[in-house]
């Protein structure tokens, strides 16, 4: 689950983000503790804590003293907006680069996307 090449704490933050986006972690519900994340992913607790804190800094999670971390209201919308911006850079650009390399034009690419969308 943890891969090389990307800081582990960033991967932890992204996985929590994914859980919020797909609804597994609803807004105003409690998220697992840092130690639970650490044991599940078999990583150092300090690293897990760094990932959680990344989301606290972004306002995605907030701390209720003595209880734990919770998903903030509006977190899902905020994450979808952020990910949509990243989508262009992380998915569209490599896609277009590869298409150009293979001589796939925009029209053909559009058709392929339609085809794939139907079967998916």
């Amino acid at each position, binding site marked *: 689950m943890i891969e090389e090449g990307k*800081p582990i704490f960033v991967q932890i933050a992204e996985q929590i983000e994914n859980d919020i986006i797909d609804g597994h972690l609803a807004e105003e519900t409690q998220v697992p503790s840092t130690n639970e994340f650490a044991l599940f992913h078999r990583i*150092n607790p*300090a690293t897990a804590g760094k990932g959680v804190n990344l989301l606290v800094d972004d306002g995605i999670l907030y701390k209720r003293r003595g209880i734990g971390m919770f998903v903030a209201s509006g977190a899902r919308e905020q994450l979808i907006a952020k990910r949509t911006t990243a989508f262009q850079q992380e998915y569209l650009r490599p896609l277009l680069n590869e298409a150009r390399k293979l001589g796939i034009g925009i029209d053909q690419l559009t058709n392929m996307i339609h085809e794939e969308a139907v079967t998916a």
Partner: protein
Amino acid sequence: MTSTTATPTTTTVIEVQSLTKRFGSLTAIDDISFSVEKNKIYGLLGRNGAGKTTIMSLLTGQDFVTQGDVRVFGESPAENARVLQNISFIKESQKYPDDFKPKHVFASAPWFFEHWSADLAGQLIDDFQLPMNRRIKKLSRGQLSAVGVIVGLASRAPLTFFDEPYLGLDAAARQTFYDRLLADYAEHPRTVVLSTHLINEVANMLEHVIVIDKGRIVIDQDAESLRESATNIVGPRTAVETFIARREVLHSEGVGGFLSATVAGLRPDERTEAAAAGLELAPVSLQQLVVRRTDGSSTEFGATS
């Protein structure tokens, strides 16, 4: 009971200054300095004979320094009961009295370890399915290692050393060890120094990494920044050579028209530049990095000494 205990009040648990250890004409440890912070998991890595066990023996008062200064909990560990009662040192070659059985080991452990947890020991005995009434001499290599692992974990010592504690443990038993270590560390934070050759297995548990080579420290860095400190660049030979021309190359190997080079960490704009040049970027694992830095056969290193 004295009023001054060796309980650490600062965040530094171990402080080593200009430490040298010689055995006759052999310099095992060559003028090293480092410190270990409280409640972190350290990896002490390096090849056989690099000096890892010597360092741990000096830190646990089992051997004397030739030159330099070693402080553990602010004091010299040599023949210092106040320091040593806070240390658990689990090594591959632990000796026990001839007639000892595992049950005797665990029964006597609370005398040495103030924070000994009989509950945790009991759970680990079940986990490792350790026969309690068999003489230690009759145990398999893996069972013997399990005895050490159980003592190391259940002692909950503020400073715990594991020196290749896994000999004879199969992959499943090693995973049990790692899982229990992480779980108990999370509940009861303490300083752990783990010496191992199975770097891939422990890489994600480490917070800080110290790599020893020929008695010297070649890496002393937090694990997260170390992960980002090198990248493999793979692609057509000419493109790779152009890209790495102005960079520090740790290692390179080629096949036909292809070249793979390990370079020091890249900034985001450099990664974009590499991608634009048609080069593939691949991560370097901690294990690869340690091999690169301690592989005597390579001549690609920047600095020689």
